[in-house]
């Protein structure tokens, strides 16, 4: 069965510094998708970044980038130049390929990021 593990329940970063959130997953599939979602306090969850497993190049979105290590089944999120608005719960998620008429979407347990002024 596929699993997603976020081993850091909470992390802190100084404003303007860089922080990396870890995520590992387990799957026997070769073609899948990985996501990082952000849930700010009392606000809706939104997509931060996504990665297709068949792409070797790491995805980037402005200050957010990932380090995708397929062999190691690792998918970490790097936030550069951290801002107060980055404070949130971050969830790593895995989506399986669409087979047999369905697919699975699995979330990790989340990492709460605090940004210190």
């Amino acid at each position, binding site marked *: 069965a596929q699993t997603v593990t976020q081993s850091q329940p909470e992390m802190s970063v100084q404003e303007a510094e860089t922080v990396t959130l870890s995520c590992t997953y387990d799957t026997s599939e070769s073609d899948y*998708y990985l*996501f990082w979602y952000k849930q700010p306090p009392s606000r809706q*969850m939104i*997509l931060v970044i996504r990665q297709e497993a068949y792409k070797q190049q790491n995805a980037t979105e402005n200050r957010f980038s990932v380090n995708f290590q397929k062999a190691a089944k690792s998918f970490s999120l790097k936030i550069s130049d951290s801002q107060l608005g980055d404070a949130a719960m971050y*969830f790593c998620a895995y989506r399986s390929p*669409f087979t047999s008429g369905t697919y699975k*979407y699995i979330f990790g*347990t989340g990492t709460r990021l605090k940004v210190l002024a």
Partner: protein
Amino acid sequence: DVKVTQSSRYLVKRTGEKVFLECVQDMDHENMFWYRQDPGLGLRLIYFSYDVKMKEKGDIPEGYSVSREKKERFSLILESASTNQTSMYLCASSPSGRVTADTQYFGPGTRLTVL
């Protein structure tokens, strides 16, 4: 912008009551999902639907049922609410994931307390 709305932000119910949580999306998405979010457990999938009148069980369907009579609306039903169903419930929708990766768009959540 995609908009996913949920009928209530906060709900308090009594044990044994039948509870309806409604979710509406306005982007003609095929897929809709219901999750519950608990501290330390992340998001766990209860049910999802990838077409009108279609539904599939997620990881924790026990004690819940769903209804999708129209494409834009996906309802979660607690047939007889119990205290262990006290949780945050999140609805999400996404375009078809058959060909490409699908981003999920989430509603604001309903915090349900069962007394």
